[in-house]
């Protein structure tokens, strides 16, 4: 029973225990991609690196055995940096998007592919709830937004972008009444004032209410909406209805208000958000939501300022660090077509957009977002360790590939980290073919051997392999990890 020190704590490890296991008994979680219960360690991802300070050696915790007298650091600055490097190397050979480019380009991060999938399934109300959650004024933006999302759409490479803006406008308008009943968190007892009632102000106010804070919007002018009214193409009833839904959520609007920040801070407010575009010197309890020419960007700033104010008021870290996003950049037409396989009939590929037919239009989406955006450990650790995806900007991108067969498993080699878990599982369970490594070095790949298909390779181990896969390389097609709001 060796005794050792891990992160300053003394632990008696079971004999034959690895450092990973010994650390786990102390509740210390060491990240790893290639390790999985029931499979012997392969020591390939090298993310579980820890340091034995006695020898100065970096050790892979999944395979190095706990030894008498070791003094191990698992999360020192050096080790964190080392893990970040490993993640960045893995990400540099990663061919796959965490989020679809439409969502990535949307300043307010509208969860577009999921919304479109719901529309395709006829779940209009659920789709509208997503639009409301992310855009706050989705119907208004349906008229006034310049729709950067559509410029990012991968369907471009085939025919025309999906009519995303039209989609969120349609569902938002159809469910205007329902939006008023959106639920808010329980009252926090905090009072926040928002200066300005344009896109940024409205977004900030709605977010604050949703988080349970009392909120009063002070508007200099005579009507709510600010610069949004300048957009002549916007029907009056649409903006009014969306303002009304915000009012219904409990936001109070004070028009013709001349109150300054100091007035408000002295007048019992716990925090103030400035959303009128005026200059402001930094001050405690005051948060700024920038206003921009593009309304959807103002919405984003409003949401951000509300999140900051909330973090300040509730005394927690503004911990909603933006999740890591892997990006593939431009795809060739042939690569883009891989997304349509099995789902979009070839004759439907050149038809162009048809926004009038809502479900059909939504079905034009290529679903190029990752099937496993939340369960992917690579993404989780990349976020946690602050890894960047473009450190090696000029790195050669491996071609996109998607392997699928009837059984419903989708294999994307570009997302594989060559951990070998599926290879070992298929071997353990005696698959007649199984998956194996082919090639070596940078060209190493996991693939069914001897021209076997994916179904034959995973004849009885599909479930275990998909579950063990640390990334989105193996996933169930049609499975949805996103949940409705």
């Amino acid at each position, binding site marked *: 029973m060796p005794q050792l020190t891990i992160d300053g704590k003394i632990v008696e490890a079971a004999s034959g225990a690895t450092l990973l296991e010994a650390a786990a008994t102390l509740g210390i979680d060491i990240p790893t991609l290639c390790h999985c219960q029931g499979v012997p*360690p*392969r*020591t*390939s*991802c*090298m*993310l579980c*690196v820890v340091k034995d300070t006695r020898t100065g050696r*970096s050790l*892979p915790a999944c*395979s*190095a*055995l706990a030894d008498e007298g070791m003094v191990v650091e698992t999360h020192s600055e050096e080790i964190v940096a*080392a893990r970040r*490097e*490993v993640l960045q*190397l*893995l990400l*540099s*050979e990663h061919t796959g998007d965490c989020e679809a480019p439409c969502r990535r380009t949307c300043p307010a991060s509208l969860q577009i592919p999921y919304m479109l999938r719901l529309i395709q399934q006829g779940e209009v109300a659920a789709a509208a709830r997503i639009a409301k959650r992310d855009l706050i004024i989705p119907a208004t933006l349906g008229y006034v937004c310049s729709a950067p999302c559509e410029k990012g759409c991968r369907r471009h490479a085939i025919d025309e972008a999906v009519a995303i803006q039209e989609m969120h406008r349609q569902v938002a308008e159809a469910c205007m009444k329902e939006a008023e009943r959106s639920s808010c968190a329980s009252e926090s007892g905090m009072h926040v004032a928002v200066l300005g009632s344009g896109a940024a102000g409205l977004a900030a106010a709605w977010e604050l209410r949703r988080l349970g804070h009392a909120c009063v919007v002070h508007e200099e002018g005579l009507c709510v909406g600010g610069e949004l009214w300048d957009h002549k193409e916007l029907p009056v009833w649409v903006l009014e209805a969306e303002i009304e839904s915000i009012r219904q959520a409990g936001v109070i609007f004070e028009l013709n208000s001349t109150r300054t920040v100091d007035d408000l801070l002295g007048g019992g407010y716990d925090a103030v958000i400035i959303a009128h575009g005026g200059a402001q010197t930094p001050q405690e309890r005051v948060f700024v939501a920038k206003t921009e020419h593009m309304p959807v960007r103002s919405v984003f700033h409003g949401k951000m300022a509300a999140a900051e104010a909330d973090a300040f008021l509730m005394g927690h870290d503004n911990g909603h660090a933006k999740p890591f996003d892997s990006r593939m950049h431009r795809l060739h037409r042939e690569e883009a077509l891989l997304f349509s396989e099995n789902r979009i009939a070839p004759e439907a590929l050149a038809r162009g957009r048809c926004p009038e037919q809502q479900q059909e239009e939504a079905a034009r989406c290529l679903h190029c977002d990752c099937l496993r955006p939340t369960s992917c450990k690579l993404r989780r650790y990349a976020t946690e360790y602050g890894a960047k995806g473009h*450190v*090696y900007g*000029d*790195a*050669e991108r491996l071609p996109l590939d998607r392997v699928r067969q009837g059984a419903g498993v989708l294999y994307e080699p570009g997302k594989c*980290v*060559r951990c070998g878990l599926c*290879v070992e599982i*298929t*071997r353990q369970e005696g698959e*007649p*073919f*199984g*998956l*194996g*490594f*082919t*090639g*070596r*070095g*940078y*060209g*190493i790949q996991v*693939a069914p*051997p*001897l*021209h*076997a298909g994916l179904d034959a390779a995973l004849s009885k181990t599909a479930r275990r392999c998909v579950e063990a896969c640390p990334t989105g390389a193996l996933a169930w097609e049609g499975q949805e990890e996103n949940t409705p709001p």
Partner: protein
Amino acid sequence: MITMKPTIDLAAVDRIIAEFGTGTETAIPVLQAVQDHYRYLPSEALEHICATTDITPASIEGIATFFAQFRRKPVGDHIIKICAGTACHVKGSPAIYEALEKHLRIPQGEDTDPDGQFTLQRVACLGCCTLAPAVQIDEVTYGHLRPDAVPRVLADFLEHDADRKAAPPMRFHHPDSRTAEVRIGLGSCCVAGGSEKIRQALEETLTDLQAKVHVKHVSCVGMCHRTPLLEILLPDCPPKLYAKVRPEDVREIITRHFRPRSPFLRLKSSAMQWLERFYTDDGRNAVARYSIDTRDAPVAAFLNAQRRLATEYCGEVGPTDIDEYQRKGGFEALRRCLGLEGGARLQPEDIIDNIERSGLRGRGGAGFPTGRKWGFVRAAEGEEKYIICNGDEGDPGAFMDRMILESYPFRVIEGMLIASLAVDAHEGIFYIRAEYPLAVRRVRAALEACTQAGLVGDNILGSGHDFHIRVMEGAGAFVCGEETALLASLEGRRGTPAFRPPFPAHRGFREKPTLVNNTETLAFVPWILRHGPEAFAEFGTEKSKGTKVFSLAGKTARGGLIEVPMGVPLRQIVEEIGGGVQDGRTFKAVQVGGPSGGCIPAHLGDTPVDYEALTQAGAMMGSGGLVVLDDSDCMVEMTRYFLSFTQRESCGKCTPCRVGTKRMLEMLTRLCEGHGKAGDLERLEHLAKVVKEQSLCGLGKTAPNPVLTTLRYYRDEFEAHLHGRCPSGTCKGLIRYGITEACIGCTKCAQACPADAIAMTPYQPHTIDVEKCTRCDVCRQVCPVDAVKVE
């Protein structure tokens, strides 16, 4: 078109399986045999193997795609192996490859010409660094090539292909008691240098003259830069050595020393010679031009500064002559250990103690004390133990192990036998690169001789000790030099390393305690036990004892295999043994330890050959390649070359090595092409440190060494590349060829230019079309007046 066999006859596969067995461990030998038969691995054959053995589809596909030796596509009639070793690289092998590709019209991304006649294959090292740049077509080696010689080489090959097939096998003369002896070097370098033709000419001459001469087939002499070599030994005369012998010179050399027996034959011989000379207009005196004497000053420096322990009796003994080996003290050490030389039988602890006191350290690169390793295996629990001789030398520009196995197989076998007594093992395996067919043949022959002499097998020399030895051929993966990867491939798996501990000494081959020693290390063992550990420890430095075998190549006047005492300064090797750099260039650096080592600059030439000193200088002993670089070599390009080797050889298992080496190589390639960006050097250095620190095995941990040392000593050259300048004029993307006013309009360059970038303008100064120019350097090499300049 490549003709595909319409159907595959699988009977051969069945025969192979019947020979090797159906266990998973046989995967690699079975695949090698299948490939030998079909010349590639047909899918049907692989499927059939899976159906009839325990080998799974995933495993067979994994192995067949992991090792470089295996091919999944049919090959052309002839395979052209282009050496990509360090020495060949610095002497221009990439241009040779391009020229071959172009001449054979090989489609992009393919390796075989449209007629299916030739397949190009880049090989890590042909092991004839002194003939650089070299290519091998089937069994024939062509050296000192230039891109413009490619058509001639192929024509020559095709012309002589038929002759070679018809050539009768060599007949050997058997020795009498006191006859004369002609020694002919038949190491791979000599064979590559043309000794096969010499042997034929010799055979013919001797038959004609009816001379009673013993023709002896000897090991590598170590003077590979002078191959082929012929040595004449007459009773009571000093030996006479002829270098760079040509087949047409043989008759003259022989008749100088041996008089034909009868007056008629004597007359016939001289008349024939006279006639031959008359008709062939070949009147030069071959002997005068090609004879060298070992006592000539430069050669004496080459041979006398050396100390031969591992390569004892270099060039004197027949590699597979067990009687001669025994006459010269062979197996004496083994007998002593077994108590058959008068003294008491040595206890295993005594043997280990001897090795420990000698200070012998592993010659594979890392320098772990051999005695300690033996002690670990001895102490490890378990009845069944194994000994592996690691002969998977894959380092481009190093061929010590090949030479030792080819020339002194008995010495290594004896070393293994002694080790088996020390650690109590009963099975040994030679793991030899498949690229070394001669070494494999020699070791097999030597093992056969030992078995017959009762030295290998059950109850060795009546001692009660059993030790069996077999040979396993590696299949072309540099990483298998790493012991855990080697063991994986021995067990029939992909050669990927595993985390240590457990060390093979505790859990190795078949999970049993296993001693893995480098070939050279084992070759020292008999010497140490014969002369005593103190005699060995007299050579060398405080921590690095004994001698070390190096292969010296690159830009020195002389190259070849050398064995020097540890502690000798690098400069002495370069200048005294190597004779300094060639062509009036200046000595710039010496690359030590191959792709895992580093470049030691000339100003640190006093660095001694010592494990610690070399590591401190940023290089490492490695397996022992020494490549000398001169001022025309670009250090950035050299770094890119070494990294491209390790990147290609990375097994792909761990992230830092798989991806890190690729990213470093991309950055270096950018620099060499003139597309470097600000911050690249810092990024490169940072990444090199990450890969060094975090890779799983020795390959990854040492791959950044060339990057780190060159950045340390030649940062200015890297910076110059960042600014689009290659100071040595090597990097194609950064240089332009031009013709100066010195041009005499001889059109040699225009004729030689493979890209038609020089117009045929007789008697007028030529010009180079920069757009068409591929910077292959041929024009500069052919210009008789040095009018081609590189900017």
